[in-house]
């Protein structure tokens, strides 16, 4: 499990993140919400040691992150960056590189790695893309391949920075469904999301950031009822009960 304690990132009077403490428990989908520039991506990067932290502690399975090598971290937590480059290599090769943290002498991927890569492609519903070059795929297809790469990494925690941005609504729902399936398998899934409805309906827990601090942490129900969403996003968030459960919507604040 990845856990941050009193995390401080950045210097001076307006640090990027200050005094953040939270854990990403296994079996749950945690949604990280907040307005642009509130430090969501920074939180994910700091939780993996991709950027230096100025204070506090990051624990991975109870061990201080600073004592772990990048390879050891990569065997415990997978990360899907927000900006994803698109090399012209095949989707299958791409997913295979998800096995890189396990690569050992003689520095070749083993049959087992190939098997896990194919399995991951199947999981992400991307088996038919395996032989295609990444630069020939659509945005949604690329996203599936990146997801498959994170799955092939076979880690207990998976952190994804804006996995649904730029996707069609159907692909967005697919990503959320996949996140749910992973959580049901006992993985800790962390998603940075922009769509409030998607997040409040699809996540078990919401971590709400604003101005570099953690404003709320709890179930979507708790965070919604608390009213803090309205304050942070400067909108009125409402909900209605439908056959498919609560649907959330936003409207402008009354003047």
């Amino acid at each position, binding site marked *: 499990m990845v856990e941050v304690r009193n995390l401080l990132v950045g210097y001076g009077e307006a640090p990027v993140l200050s005094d953040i403490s939270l854990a990403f428990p296994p079996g749950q989908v945690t949604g990280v919400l907040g307005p642009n520039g509130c430090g969501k991506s920074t939180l994910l*990067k700091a939780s*993996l040691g*991709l950027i230096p932290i100025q204070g506090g502690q990051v624990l991975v399975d109870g061990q201080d992150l600073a004592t772990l*090598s*990048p*390879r*050891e*971290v*990569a*065997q415990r937590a*997978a*990360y899907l*960056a927000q*900006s*994803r*480059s698109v*090399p*012209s*290599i*095949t989707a*299958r*090769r791409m997913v295979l*590189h*998800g096995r*890189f*943290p396990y*690569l050992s002498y003689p*520095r070749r*991927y083993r049959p087992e790695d190939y098997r896990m890569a*194919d399995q991951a*492609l199947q999981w992400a519903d991307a*088996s*038919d*893309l*395996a*032989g*295609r*070059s990444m630069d020939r795929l659509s945005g949604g297809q690329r996203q599936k391949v990146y997801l498959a790469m994170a799955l092939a*990494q076979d880690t207990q925690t998976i952190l994804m920075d804006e996995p649904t941005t730029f996707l069609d609504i159907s692909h967005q729902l697919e990503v959320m469904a996949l996140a749910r399936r992973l959580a049901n398998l006992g993985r800790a899934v962390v998603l940075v999301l922009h769509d409030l409805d998607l997040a409040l309906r699809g996540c078990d827990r919401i971590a709400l950031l604003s101005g570099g601090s953690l404003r709320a942490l709890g179930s979507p129900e708790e965070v919604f009822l608390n009213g803090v969403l309205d304050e942070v996003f400067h909108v009125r968030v409402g909900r209605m009960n439908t056959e498919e459960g609560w649907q959330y919507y936003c409207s402008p604040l009354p003047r």
Partner: protein
Amino acid sequence: MKSLPTSSIQRSNHNFIVLCLLGLFLAVGTLSLLLGPESIAPGQVLQGLFDPADTIARRIVLYVRLPRTLAGLLAGAALACAGVIVQVVLSNPLAAPSTIGVNSGAGLAAALCCALLPTNLTAVPFAAFAGAFLGAVTVLAIAQRTGASRLTLVLAGLAISGIFSAGVDTILTFVPESLNGYSDFRIGGLDGVSLKQLKPAALLILPALLASLSLHNELDLLALGQEQAQALGLSAKKLRLAALGLSSVLAGAAVSFCGLIGFVGLMVPHIMRRLVGEESGPLLLTCALGGGVVLCGCDLLARLLFAPYELPVGILMSLLGGPFFIWLLLRSRGGRHSG
């Protein structure tokens, strides 16, 4: 498992291209031994290679054509692979040993070494490596400090090259005989290369080629961007330096015997990327073969076009490479506007 046939087609396609290039590599090498201003029958060439009897044909084959052929194949392979590596490390398609100051750094150090230690041929490739690494690290530092755009990086490379060539000129002014062994060091050429010069360079290039090939997964990861690479457990910073070191060994060793030949490291990787994609393993392998084919082939052409006069192969490479580079510049400009 619908996926398997497609990827195995891809793989056999790669194998086919590699085999074709290997064929070309051997063919160009053979032709380069057989053809030249002095016509020597194939039988005499073979005899020259293996029969110890001292004939004129043997001398030409053993001391002129063989070193020249090996030099072309070796330098082409080294420069093309160095090009692939710097393009990945700097994530810049316009980068190449000749455009970012690696070649000229190697040139300066080689000239300096020749001026200070005129009799020590073995030291030249090592000195050239040090100079190349200096050039490469400077450019990397500029790239990281400013987050430089593609063009800025190339312009910085141009400036660095300018400084280094001023250094070469200074050395040539004070010690004119320092680069005597080279037909024209600054244009780059393969005539006058001796096996003695080649040996230490080959001892650097061949292991460096193998080492680059063994890093193909790491280079693939680096191409995904620094953060994604690090999240997959790669120490991106260390690998960057190691990769630049390897490309400096390759480019430096090549420059140490063939001078400042440009554009091989730029053109060949782009051509091969079109054929096999960006997967580093096949890309490096095809570049090693293709680089040899292009440089040795161009040298053969430069020897035969105006026979009995010879053109230094560096001139031919610039004639071909200049327009190619402009085309790349225009294309990457267009890419930015449309993307």
